[in-house]
Each structure stands twice: as structure tokens, then as C-alpha cells.
């Protein structure tokens, strides 16, 4: 163990060294391995000790894949056991500690991709209702600190869907999420994250409940929110709302989803204006988009 620690301090990216270390840790862990379990068993004492070493190495290497993978390997069996109800006070406290560790990494870099992946893995693995609920507060806090933190927005989507990629949220929840994202979009109409979240909510309901009156109503509420925000922005800032290119892009998406001639005409006009004047770096894209809308 000493030897691997020395080697890892010299090169924390050597995956073979990490693997050796895990072999040693597992052979030192009692009781002996359950051959039926797909996860390696490590004793809690050794897990705690090694997490300390890993955190030490992780400090100056926050984006090292092997370090994050080692944390996960250590905790895999324990956290899977939580999901099947085989947990105890010690494992719960390890769970809390691990989430706190990730929080500390976020203090340094609230967009650290590895940290977010690790966090999502933990939440899905333990799958505890209380953790899903608590997580909404975590996301809220990060969005309050930086309304443009796209990682936090993505995590909100993840949490609200309880980590599912296939089950859409209900219309009731979607309405609440729309309220939330619109309120944030209002605070910063330039923010792509908030607007894309809105558009995604609408798209998801279209898929989930089809072209029903409820959907049309929901789509309409999004459109109203955008036009309200545009008006408020212009009143308060005395600037042209076309400047908020991500809001206008979202508006174009919504108009396209409405699909009636009048909406498409507005969308086409907006695309042209963006390409010609307000978002010229994307001129080619917007001119083609305008043509596409014209032919619809």
C-alpha cells in the first residue's frame, strides 16, 4: 500500500497502479469476497482511509479520471447496498460525506464535469427519495450563485426526472419547472441555459401527451412568458430585446412548434433579423433557418 501511494503521488494517472492498490485493499478486507457479487468488497475502515488519500491527490488533480474512478470503485458496493436496503448508520454517513466532498469540489469549480458525473452516479445508485428531494436545494443554491451555470441546470433536469432518461415528468411538474425557469430567465434574459430549459420542457410534453389541449395550453404559456419577458426587458433596460439572442432563438423554437402561418411568418422574420443584425456570427445558420421556416 505504501509503495502504490508513493507511485501515485508521482503519477496519479497510472491506472495500473490504482488497480494494484485496489487488489491489495480488497485482499485486506474481511470478510472475504462474495463471488456472487459483481462489486468488490472493501472494508469500511479501508474505504475511509483511502478516500482520505484520494482526496489529497484529488486536490491538485480535480480532472483526473483515475482518481474519480477509484472513489467510485471504493464506494460501489456500499452504495448499491443502500439501494437494496442493506445500509447502516456508517454507510449513510459515508454517503453524506461523499456528497459533501463533491460540494467542496464545486466550491473550487462549480462546473467540474467529473464531479457532476460522480454525483449523478451516487444519486442513481442509492436512489433514495430523500436524497432526490434534498438535491433540488443543492441545484437551487448553485443556480442562485451563478444563474448561467449550465451544469447546475442540467442537474436540475436530471434530478427532476429522478435520473430517468425514458420517463417524462408529468404536466403538473412541467408547469412548476416552467415557472422556475421563466423566473430565472427574467433575471437574465441573455442566459441560454434558462431558455433552452424552457424549450426542452415544451418539447418533452409534446412527446409525452401529444398535440392535446393541455399541451397547446402549456406551449401557449411559454410563448406568453417570452413575450412578457421581452416587454419587461425593453421597458426596464431601454434596449432592443433582439439583443437577447438566446431568448429570441427560444421564441423562434416556440413559434415553430405552434406551426400556424402567422407564427411561422414571425419566426422567419426574427431569424432574418438575427442573421442580418443581431447575431451575425451565426448569419449563415439564421439565413438557412429563415428559408426553412418559409418553406413550412
Amino acid at each position, binding site marked *: 500500500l505504501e509503495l502504490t501511494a508513493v507511485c501515485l503521488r508521482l*503519477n496519479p494517472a497510472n491506472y*495500473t497502479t490504482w488497480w494494484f492498490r485496489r487488489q491489495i485493499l480488497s485482499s485486506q478486507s474481511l470478510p472475504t469476497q462474495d463471488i456472487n457479487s459483481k462489486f468488490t468488497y472493501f472494508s469500511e475502515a479501508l474505504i475511509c482511509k483511502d478516500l482520505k488519500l484520494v482526496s489529497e491527490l484529488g486536490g491538485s488533480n480535480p480532472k483526473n*479520471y483515475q482518481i474519480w474512478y477509484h472513489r467510485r470503485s471504493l464506494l460501489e458496493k456500499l452504495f448499491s447496498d443502500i439501494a437494496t436496503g442493506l445500509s447502516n448508520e456508517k454507510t449513510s454517513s459515508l454517503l453524506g460525506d461523499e456528497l459533501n466532498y463533491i460540494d467542496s469540489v464545486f466550491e473550487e469549480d462549480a462546473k467540474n464535469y467529473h464531479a*457532476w458525473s460522480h454525483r449523478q452516479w451516487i444519486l442513481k445508485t442509492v436512489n433514495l427519495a430523500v436524497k432526490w428531494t434534498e438535491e433540488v436545494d443543492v441545484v437551487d443554491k448553485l443556480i442562485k450563485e451563478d444563474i448561467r451555470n*449550465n451544469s447546475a441546470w*442540467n442537474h436540475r433536469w436530471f434530478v427532476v426526472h429522478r*435520473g430517468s432518461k425514458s420517463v417524462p415528468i408529468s404536466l403538473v411538474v412541467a408547469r412548476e419547472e416552467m415557472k422556475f425557469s421563466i423566473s430565472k430567465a427574467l433575471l437574465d434574459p441573455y442566459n441560454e441555459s434558462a431558455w433552452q430549459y424552457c424549450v426542452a420542457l415544451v418539447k418533452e410534453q409534446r412527446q409525452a401527451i401529444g398535440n392535446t389541449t393541455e399541451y397547446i395550453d402549456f406551449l401557449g404559456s411559454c410563448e406568453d412568458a417570452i413575450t412578457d419577458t421581452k416587454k419587461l426587458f425593453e421597458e426596464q433596460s431601454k434596449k432592443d430585446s433582439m439583443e437577447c439572442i438566446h431568448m429570441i432563438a427560444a421564441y423562434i423554437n416556440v413559434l415553430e412548434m405552434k406551426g400556424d402561418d402567422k407564427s411561422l411568418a414571425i419566426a422567419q422574420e426574427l431569424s432574418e433579423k438575427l442573421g442580418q443584425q443581431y447575431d*451575425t456570427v451565426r448569419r449563415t445558420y439564421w439565413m*438557412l433557418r429563415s428559408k426553412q421556416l418559409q418553406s413550412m
Partner: protein
Amino acid sequence: MSSNFETEFKRVRHIQYFVKCLKTLPSKHAALDTNRLTMVHFAVQSLEIVGFFDSQENLKTYSISKEEIIEWIYSLQVISSPQSPPTSAGFIGGSFLGLNVDGEYYNQGHLAMTYSALCTLITLGDDLKRVHRNEIISALKYLQLNDGSFQCVGLGSEYDLRFVYCACAICHILEDWSGVDQHAMIQYIYSCKTYDGALSLVPGQECHGGSTYCGIASLALMGALDQSFYHFNGWKDDLIRWCVSRQIEGMQGRPNKLEDTCYSYWIGATLKILDCENYLDRDVLRCFVMACQSDLGGFSKVRDEYHPPDLLHSFYSLAWLSFSQQELNPIDCMLGMSRRHFLSFRKKK
């Protein structure tokens, strides 16, 4: 524009930079020891882009031998025997476990190193006859997981779209898909679709330029792009919108993050695969990339004095530039290697 480019472009400096990297890397790069093959891949591809290998004089002046590099790469091929674990075939990243190693539990090929090796060998004109094709292809079977994704080593590792891409590139180069479950890979890629139209590294995670490239390039290599866009109505539009929205002047990797030269390639190549590379403002992007050019050769990730050039950003900057600058030899946007050498490799067979 073109004549300006040649005066702006510090060709000789770049050659010096990449040659130096090929020979030694400073000690703070110790963490790259297990990934040396990838560093060599970056350096060789970059030299190829600037036409270094076309002149025998260059090779003499800088004492670079293509044959020497080829031999070094082959010395990193793991020799698997019937006793070796089935995942051991392939190439290892460096000599940290010795050279010409026999496949054993802790001596195994690494998917990204195998990918790097094949690309570099082809670019140096090798015919891959000494590559243990069958063993590499069958190792893939064991590296693929139930969800369709891949680990990079038989010892166990993280699994995500990066290694799906490596696997696809390897199969495409060796023209042998028998070691992978394409359907499972495709499903995994789909599971990485994000709510805003791009792809994350693992399901549930944030959209990202690197993973988006890996997924789209993989689908393209499998010939599954068209059917994917047909299956998911509206996805192509969303994806294009996402990609073009990443441009500030340079490209960012995710919404509301900073510009970084390597995303010129990750996003630029993705759009090129979709036949939409002109949707970016390439003049503005070129300005950004050229502003990140270092006086000492190479490119850094951003244009400030605190970030020296590094191999990764140097290669990906050049790779994107090679798409539109006729003074440079282009990179293949799906494989990430010299287009002309890959085509001539194909012809030889």
C-alpha cells in the same frame, strides 16, 4: 485570405515545437506517461498537417526517422498468447511496464492507445501488417459492457462515449465490426442525448462538445447517422442549433463556458460530418485560433499569456485549420487522422 495565412502561420516554429515534443516532454507531464502514444499521435498528425514528412531534408535536419517511430509503436503492442486475458490485445500507452510485453492481467492494451497507434502507423505509411487484428477485434467483445458502452482496459475503467468512439474508429480502420454490438453502441449513444440536442459523456450528464463529437462521429463511422436522424425527428435541427450556438468568437465546449481552441475541432468536425461546417463564422473562428498561436510554436487553449501551448490544443487547432486552409494537409473529420494517408492505406488493400 490565403496569402495572409502563410505569413501569419508560423510553420517553422510549429515544426520545431512538434519535433521537440516527439523527442522529450517536460517532467510536469508525468501524468501523461501512460498516454505517451496519444502524445505521439498528436505530434505526428500535426507534423503531417504542416507537410513536415514530405521533405526528406526535414527528416534529416531534425533527425526524425519514420521507421524509428513505427518500431517504437510496435514495441508497445501487447503480445497476447492463449494464456493471456482476452482483453489484453492492443497497444499500451508507454513503456512503463516494459516493451514488447506479454499479455497478462496487468499488461493489457488500452483502447485509446490502440486507436492512437493505428492512426499514427497509417499516417507514417505503415500497412498495419504487424498489427494483431483478430486479437484486437476480439478483445473489443470483452471491453463492451451491457449498456453498449466501452471500458478502455480489461482491468476495469470508467466507461463512456470516448471509448465508444475509439472502438468505432478501430473497427472502421480494420474493417471488422465482428467484435462489437453495433446496436447496443447506437442505443448507448442515444441514451447520451441531452435535453438541448447535443450529447453528454454518460447518460444524464451535461451536453459537451467532446462527447458530441465522439457520438456523432461514431454514428457516422457505423453508417447510422441518417437512420438516427430519421428515428428522432427534429434531432438534427436541435443538434445543429446547439453546435452553432457554441461560437462566441472561438468555440466553447458547453453553454456559458469559456472559448477553447480544441472545441474548434470537436464542434467544427461535428458540423463537417453533418455537412454544415459553413454554418460557423470561419473567419472569426480562424482569428481566434490564430490569436492562440504561440511564438514558440504550437497553440494554447486560450489567448492569454498564462497558458503556454500544449500538444492537445496544438493538434486540435491545426486539425480544424486543416479543414479550410489549402496550405495544410487535411485531417479526416471522422477519424481524426491524416485523410490522404488513410485513403492510400485503404487503396493498398
